[in-house]
């Protein structure tokens, strides 16, 4: 088990390194750097000014070297102006050149500075994660029980009309992308002109204070898309359990149907969906980005869009590291959980 964990964690680190390097490379291509310079100095500067600004701020060094700086394994860039003033990566208003450390990268705990939000990356990412965490908590609270219920109901009588209806329903929800369901929900529930105006079509106020009115639609939009998939997995697992030997025995013994479902089948049928739910996390990120943009909720997904749209290099790297880690860690948990719950599989 320990060896398995160690090798998985090693792969994880390697993956994270590769991915951040790819992001780093893509965001540091010529046209993207020009975009950074122009957003910093204004749109109307000349090419020569762009070049001099980029040189002055260390953007013209080789990409590998700069990636090393970001990681914290290469000394931070410094630049001495003609008047002797020293500026550099590790130098800012609070830490002047004399006391500034040589290395300031991720390894030193410095995630860099967001050029869009003018804050430390760690602060922005933490803020986004906090808000998205709240959103995900509610999504899970709605999605998981709902999906399990539908899946169990459908799976306990395979092939019945209830099964058909609920399975079709699950397919419909997986076939409805968030940008369609969100748009329809807003029209129906939030619009005062043609809709019911029961709920809010904007979740900005939910950042400070979550209410039923401002949080229902975003939560529902994400939950619905994921619900169908988990429900179908639960259904598959339930049908398998219902045909198992011990259930047949119970039925022959004359145990009533509701009793069979509640007391015998349910527990075993819920093991498999666990791994599926874990694997849902990264998949939900897509939905989070769309919903946070649609409902103007400034969480992690919204931060990603802003960082990518403005080529905010260090913020984008921070966001990628976090999202890649989420993907890999949930994969790991689901693997371990699967092994743990299923004694037939052993790790070699």
């Amino acid at each position, binding site marked *: 088990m320990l060896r398995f964990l160690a090798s998985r964690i090693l792969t994880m680190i390697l993956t994270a390194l590769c991915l951040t390097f790819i992001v780093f490379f893509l965001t540091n291509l010529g046209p993207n750097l020009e975009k950074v310079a*122009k957003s910093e100095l204004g749109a*109307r500067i000349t090419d020569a000014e762009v070049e001099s600004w980029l040189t002055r701020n260390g953007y013209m060094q080789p990409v590998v070297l700069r990636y090393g700086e970001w990681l914290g394994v290469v000394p931070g860039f410094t630049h001495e102006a003609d008047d002797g003033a020293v500026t550099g990566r590790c130098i800012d208003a609070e830490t002047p050149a004399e006391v500034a450390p040589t290395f300031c990268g991720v390894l030193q705990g410095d995630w860099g500075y967001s050029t869009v939000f003018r804050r430390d990356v760690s602060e922005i990412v933490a803020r986004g994660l906090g808000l998205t965490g709240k959103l995900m908590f509610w999504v899970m609270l709605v999605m998981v029980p709902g999906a399990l219920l539908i899946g169990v109901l459908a799976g306990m009588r395979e092939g019945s009309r209830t099964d058909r209806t609920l399975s079709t329903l699950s397919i419909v929800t997986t076939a409805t992308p968030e940008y369609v369901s969100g748009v329809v929900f807003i029209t129906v529930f939030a619009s005062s002109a043609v809709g019911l105006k029961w709920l809010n079509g904007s979740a900005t106020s939910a950042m400070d204070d979550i209410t039923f009115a401002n949080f229902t639609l975003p939560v529902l939009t994400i939950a619905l898309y994921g619900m169908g998939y988990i429900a179908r997995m639960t259904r598959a697992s339930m049908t398998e359990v219902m045909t198992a030997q011990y259930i047949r025995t119970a039925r022959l013994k004359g145990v009533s149907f509701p009793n069979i479902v509640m007391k015998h089948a349910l527990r075993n049928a819920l093991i498999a969906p666990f791994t599926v739910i874990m694997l849902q996390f990264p998949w939900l990120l897509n939905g989070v980005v769309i919903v946070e943009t649609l409902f103007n909720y*400034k969480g992690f997904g919204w931060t990603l869009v802003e960082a990518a749209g403005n080529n905010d290099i260090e913020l984008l790297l921070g966001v990628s590291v976090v999202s890649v880690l989420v993907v890999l860690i949930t994969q790991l948990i689901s693997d371990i959980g699967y092994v743990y719950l299923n004694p037939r599989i052993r790790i070699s």
Partner: protein
Amino acid sequence: MTQHFRNAEKVHPAATLYATEEKAGKLDRREFLTRATALGVTAPAAYGLLGLSSPAKAEAHATSGGTLRMQMETKALKDPRLFDWSEMGNFARGWLEYLVEYNGDGSLRGMLLESWEANEDATEFTLNVRPGVTWNNGDAFTAEDVARNITGWCDSSVEGNSMAARMSSLIDADTGMAREGAITVVDDLTVKLTLNAPDITVIVGMADYPASIVHSSYAGGDPSVNPIGTGPYLPTQNDVGVKQILVKNTDHTWWGTEVYGGPYLDSIEYIDYGTDPSAFLAAAESGEIDATYQTTGDFVDIFDAIGFNKTEAITSATLAIRFNQLQEPFDNVEVRRAMQLAVDNSVILELGYNGLGTTAENHHVCPIHPEYAELAPLVVDPDGAAAAIAEAGHADTEFELISIDDAWQAASCDAVAAQIRDAGINIKRTVLPGSTFWNDWTKYPFSATEWNMRPLGVQVLALAYKSGVAWNETAFANAEFDALLARAMSIENAEARSEVMAEIETIMQNEGVLIQPYWRSLYRHTAAGVMGADMHPTFEHHHYKWWIEA
């Protein structure tokens, strides 16, 4: 209210002339107010010249307290001279004030300047600094502060300093700095400006959003970090892209309370909802905001319908769908002219901006300017357009029209492209996100740019179409145009000037500089009870006038 009145004989002679013109119907009232007050006549005096009394102030019964939440893009601040968005100025306006203030009715009034006078040919301006103004750190505000800021504006070596273009008559062309002797501090409360040519736009330029007055300790960067200013508010939160909050500065006695009244609100929150108007609508319907920054296009009616109050500012704000004359194939004037021929501006107004404005005539001079000279109506001839394109050898060329992803701008460009396509010319559309669009905005061969209102008709021509100026996105370089424009800038008589303007407008049209479909009105919607926060023609937020009905 202690307004500074002048003796009748001290009123600038040109202003009296303008008053005569206004009464004769040659000058419209708002233009008269702008021009007269630019010469140093106070607004009440200007109204007096017309035989009218100044409009009554609504603030008389204003109530204090409360928080106003407005939707606005919250942009990162930088050195005020480099401001390229009104939004930046509007947040900084809480603590950084201006020398003069441009008002919705077209008049200018003194803020940190109490008054100003111009000499007869408008080459010399005397600025009288308002006495008794203090910075919020306790320092006194003096003529030195004024002179230092103006000198700063004149520094054209600063990358992206757009104030330099507005102060060009104070700048030495060789050094790119303020001319020796152009700015003189006469005494503690007086500054004298000596211009190298008659230029009535200098004072108006001081009301523009990059002209914030900063403290001597300010050394560049984000001014909200150490917010020393003369204004009544202080920034307490500055989360770019999320929220910016101004809170009334209780430790500071604001000079304006005695002079103009206010400020009434305890705090002002700017909340960022991106650029999508449907998000603003959702926010308004959810009760998250009390006012929009600007309401555009189809949303004007919609906001009316949900019970928000509409305020309107009639302006010369417009959309310039311009050609870059250095880029293939628009270096050929026939191609540019043909494109103009294919487009019916009134249809663009209907489809792109819901008919909320007036059609324009492809020369960027607005009927509300006295400079405006009426030319023959534009001809729309799609068949002729296609023939001209074919003749120029571009029958099979696919043109590309670029715009930003803003709702009404994109819609207008889509409509333009559709008309060009209907004429039988090949064209495709590209919509770029805002973050990308502005990178190359002056270089696109064929794209649309939003231009805000300038109080004077000649201003935008000097800013955007004069040869070689920083914002000249059309690459239009025409010596005859430059000469005529310089002449227009020095002629005071509206009738005489409009003759020159007729020539300028004709050149603009003949050279096929841009497709300018319409002049748009600007709208803001406010929730019931929000007072004084009317739409301003140049988007300025005069926080001290805002209040909420208790």
